[in-house]
C-alpha cells in the first residue's frame, strides 16, 4: 500500500509515483507551506477520535498483540494533544524572534525553515513510531517520505491517511511507501530527493542509510540504545518495587527499558544480598502481571540454566523462579539482559561510573536512579558526564513527556534550519 497526495494506491503505482516524485516535491515546496497549527489541529482531532474509540477495531488488535495497556495508550495519546504538541514545539525550537545584531544600527532577522524533504527509514520494534517520526517532520514543516519497516502492522499508513483526511493541506507533505529494504534502486531515488534521511535502527541500518544518501544529504540517526538502573545501598523497597513494575510492564524491550542494576558497591557479599532482595521483589511484582508467552519464558530459562552450568567459569549467581530472574555478576559490562523480566545486577562503585561507561557513550540512554536525596545530584552529574542522556526515578524510565529530548537531541531542530535574512 502506498499513500501519496492523500490517496491510497496499490504497490504497483510505485514506479509512476517515483517518476514524478522530485517534480512533485519541488512544486509543493515552491507553492505550499504548512503551519504548526495545521499539524497540531489534525493531530488533536485524530487523538480525540482514537480516544473516542473510532478506530478500536483496528487498534485493538495491535494493542493486544503488543500487550499495551489502556493507560499506556492514553499516555501516548496525551502526546498528540494540542497542549503537548505546542509545548514540544516551544521547548524544542526555542524563540528566535529576537533579531541578530549586526552593527550598531543594523540587525538581521532570523527565520526557521524546514530542511525540505525528509526520508524516514523507520524501525519496526515500536508500532506507531513511523507515524510519529513523520509527525515530527511535519511539525518542522517538511515534506515526509516514509519507508515502512518490513514488519509494519498497517497502523502507520492508517494514522497518516486519516491525518490527511482531517487536514487536506497536509496531503502533499506525506508519502508512505512499502518498499522492501532490498529495493535499493527505489530507496536511492527517495534519498536523492531528500534533504535529510531520518533513520531509526541499529548500526547496520544507519550504515545502510549513509551509503544510500548522497554526501550532501544530512543523515539523522536515532540508533539503538541500552538503559539501566543505578542503585546505592540505601535504595528503598518502594523504589525497587517501582523498578520491578517498569521491568514487568516494558518486558525490557524498549531502548529505555532497564536491562539491569548497577549497585554502588565492590563487595560481592553485599551485591549478592542486593540481588536476592531485588529478586524477591521482582517475583512478587511479576505475579500481578500476565505471564510472558511460554516460548520466550522457555528460552530465558534455557539461557539461565546454561549460565548456572557455567558458574564455575563466570562466577555468576542466578536467582530464578516464577518467570523472573536476577543474575549477579562480577563484571561491570553494560550488556543486554535475557529480556522478558530477567535482569542482571553488577557491581559499580560510584568512582568507577565514568571509566566503566565512557566507552559505551553512543549507546547510553536512560538511567533509573535509586538513591537517597543527598546522592541524587552528585550521582546524576557523574552519570551525565559518562554519557547518559536521561536520568529518571526508578519507575519512570520509560516515561514519555512532551518536550523531552530524544537521545539527548531535539528532533525538530535537526529537521529544520535557521535562515538569516538581512
Amino acid at each position, binding site marked *: 500500500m502506498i499513500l501519496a497526495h492523500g490517496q491510497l494506491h496499490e504497490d504497483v503505482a510505485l514506479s509512476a509515483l517515483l517518476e514524478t516524485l522530485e517534480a512533485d516535491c519541488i512544486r509543493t515546496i515552491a507553492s505550499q507551506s504548512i503551519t504548526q497549527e495545521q499539524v497540531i489541529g489534525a493531530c488533536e482531532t485524530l487523538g480525540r477520535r482514537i480516544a473516542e474509540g473510532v478506530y478500536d477495531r483496528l487498534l485493538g488488535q495491535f494493542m493486544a498483540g503488543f500487550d499495551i495497556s489502556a493507560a499506556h495508550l492514553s499516555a501516548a495519546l496525551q502526546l498528540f494533544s494540542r497542549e503537548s504538541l505546542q509545548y514540544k514545539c516551544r521547548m524544542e525550537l526555542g524563540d528566535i524572534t529576537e533579531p541578530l545584531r549586526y552593527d550598531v544600527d543594523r540587525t538581521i532577522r532570523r527565520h526557521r525553515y524546514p530542511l525540505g524533504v525528509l526520508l524516514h527509514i523507520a524501525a519496526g520494534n515500536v508500532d506507531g513510531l513511523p507515524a510519529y517520526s513523520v509527525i515530527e517532520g511535519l511539525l518542522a514543516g517538511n515534506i515526509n517520505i516514509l519507508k515502512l519497516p518490513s514488519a509494519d502492522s498497517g497502523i502507520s499508513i492508517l494514522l497518516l491517511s486519516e491525518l490527511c483526511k482531517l487536514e487536506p493541506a497536509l496531503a502533499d507533505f506525506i508519502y508512505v511507501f512499502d518498499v522492501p529494504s532490498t529495493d535499493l534502486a527505489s530507496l536511492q531515488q527517495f534519498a536523492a530527493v531528500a534533504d535529510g534521511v531520518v533513520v531509526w535502527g*541499529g548500526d547496520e541500518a544507519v550504515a545502510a542509510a549513509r551509503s544510500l544518501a548522497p554526501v550532501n544529504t544530512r543523515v539523522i540517526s536515532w540508533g*539503538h540504545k541500552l538503559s539501566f538502573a543505578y542503585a546505592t545501598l540505601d535504595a528503598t523497597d518502594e523504589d525497587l518495587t517501582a523498578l520491578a513494575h517498569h521491568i514487568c510492564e516494558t518486558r525490557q524491550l524498549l531502548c529505555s527499558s532497564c536491562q539491569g542494576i548497577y549497585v554502588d558497591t565492590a563487595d560481592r557479599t553485599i551485591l549478592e544480598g542486593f540481588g536476592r532482595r531485588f529478586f524477591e521483589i521482582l517475583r512478587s511484582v511479576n505475579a500481578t502481571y500476565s505471564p510472558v508467552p511460554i*516460548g520466550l519464558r*522457555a528460552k530465558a*530459562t534455557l539461557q539461565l*540454566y546454561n549460565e548456572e*552450568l557455567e558458574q564455575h567459569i563466570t562466577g555468576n549467581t542466578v536467582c*530464578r523462579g516464577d518467570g523472573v530472574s536476577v543474575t549477579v555478576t562480577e563484571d561491570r559490562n553494560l550488556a543486554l539482559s535475557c529480556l522478558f523480566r530477567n535482569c542482571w545486577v553488577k557491581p559499580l562503585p560510584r568512582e568507577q561510573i565514568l571509566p566503566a561507561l565512557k566507552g559505551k557513550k553512543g549507546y547510553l540512554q536512560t538511567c533509573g536512579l535509586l538513591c537517597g536525596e543527598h546522592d541524587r545530584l552528585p550521582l546524576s552529574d557523574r552519570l551525565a558526564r559518562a554519557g547518559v542522556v536521561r536520568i529518571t526515578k526508578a519507575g519512570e524510565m520509560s516515561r514519555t513527556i512532551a518536550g523531552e529530548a530524544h537521545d539527548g537531541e531535539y528532533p525538530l531542530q535537526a529537521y529544520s534550519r535557521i535562515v538569516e535574512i538581512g
Partner: protein
Amino acid sequence: MDKRTSLFRHKHPYDLQGTEQLFVEAMAQNAQFQYANCDDYRRICQMQGVDVNNIRTMDDVAKLPVLPTLYFKHHELFSMPAERLLIKATSSGTSGKMSKIGFDTRSLLHGLSMVLRVGRFHRLLSLIPCHYIILGYQPTRQNQTAFSKTGYGFTFMAPALSRTYALVWKDGKYELNIEGLKKQLRRCGRSLFPTRTIGFPAYTHMLLSQLKAEGISMTLPRGSKITMGGGWKQFYAQRVEKEVLYQLAWEVLGIPETDCVEFFGAVEHPILYTTCEKHHFHIPVYSRVIIRDPDTLAPVPHGTVGLVNLLSPMTMSMPILSVMTDDLGVIREDCGCGIGSPYLEIIGRVGVRDITTCAAGADQMLKEVGP
C-alpha cells in the same frame, strides 16, 4: 555386561514398557562412565547433588544432569581421547553456532543396529535399488554439517542407482541445481525403479510447489518415497500444514501420503525418530523423552507443553545421555496407529526470533565494539 547392547538389539523398536529396566541400567552405566571420564560432567553431577551410582528407576534417570544443546556450543566435552572418535559432526548450523560432537566406533555400531531395526520396521530398508534426490548439500571434505552426512547415510537404506543433489559443489562453491533436479525427476518418472527424495520439509515443499507452478507432474513408480528430516527450523514463517505437502506430493509426483515419511534427530541426540502412518514421532526403545516445565525444568505430565529433554545411553564418547533441545514439545498417547508407545510432537523453537528490539540491537553493537 554392556546393557546398551541388549537395548539396541531389542527385537521390537517401540516396546518401551518391556525395555524400561534395561534402559535405566544402560543409562546408569553410561552416567558412571561419563562421571569417571569427563571432568565437566563430574563437576555438574556434584553441583546438582546427583549420585550416579544410585540410578535405579526412571525417576532417578530424570534427575541426571540435563545438558542444554547451547552448552555444547561453547564447551567441548569428550569422555574419550579425540583421536579415537570417528565423526565430528556439527549441527546443521541454522543458528550459526556449531557444536562439535564425536562418536566412538561402538556407539556408532549401536546406532547402525538401531537404524537397521527402525528402517526394517518402517519398511524403509529395501533391497530394491532406487534413485535418490537429495535436497541438500553434496558432501565434500569442506562441508561437515550433520545433514550432508545423514542425507548421504540414508542413501544406503536401499541400494542407490543414482544420487542427485540440489546443491552441487562446483568450482569451489555450492550451486543450486534446480534444472538438474527437474531433468532427473523426469527421467525417474520413466524408470522401472522407485525414487526417494531426502531433505528438509521446507525444501521439499519448495521443490514440489515449483514443479506444480510449472505444470510438471508425473507418477513415480510404486515404492517411491518422500523422506524428510531436519525440522522446519528457519522456515517457520513458510511452514505449511503437512496435509498441503502430502497433497502436493500426490499431485506432482504421484506419491501417496503413506509414503511420505519424516525423520527427526539431533546431533546431540542421534536417535532415529520416524513417523508412523499417521505422521507421528513415536518414542523408540533407544530413547526416552521428558517434557520439562519452562520455568522450573521439573518434569510435566504427558499432554503438557514444555521443553524437550531427550535421553539415550547410545553414546559413550560424550556426556550426551540427557540433553535439552531448543524446542518446545508435548508427549501424546492417542495415536491409534498400533505402535503403542507415546509420541513426541514438536511445537516449535523457543523464543521468537522475529522480535528484534532496539535494546537487543544495541547489545549486538556493543559486542562488536568490545567491552
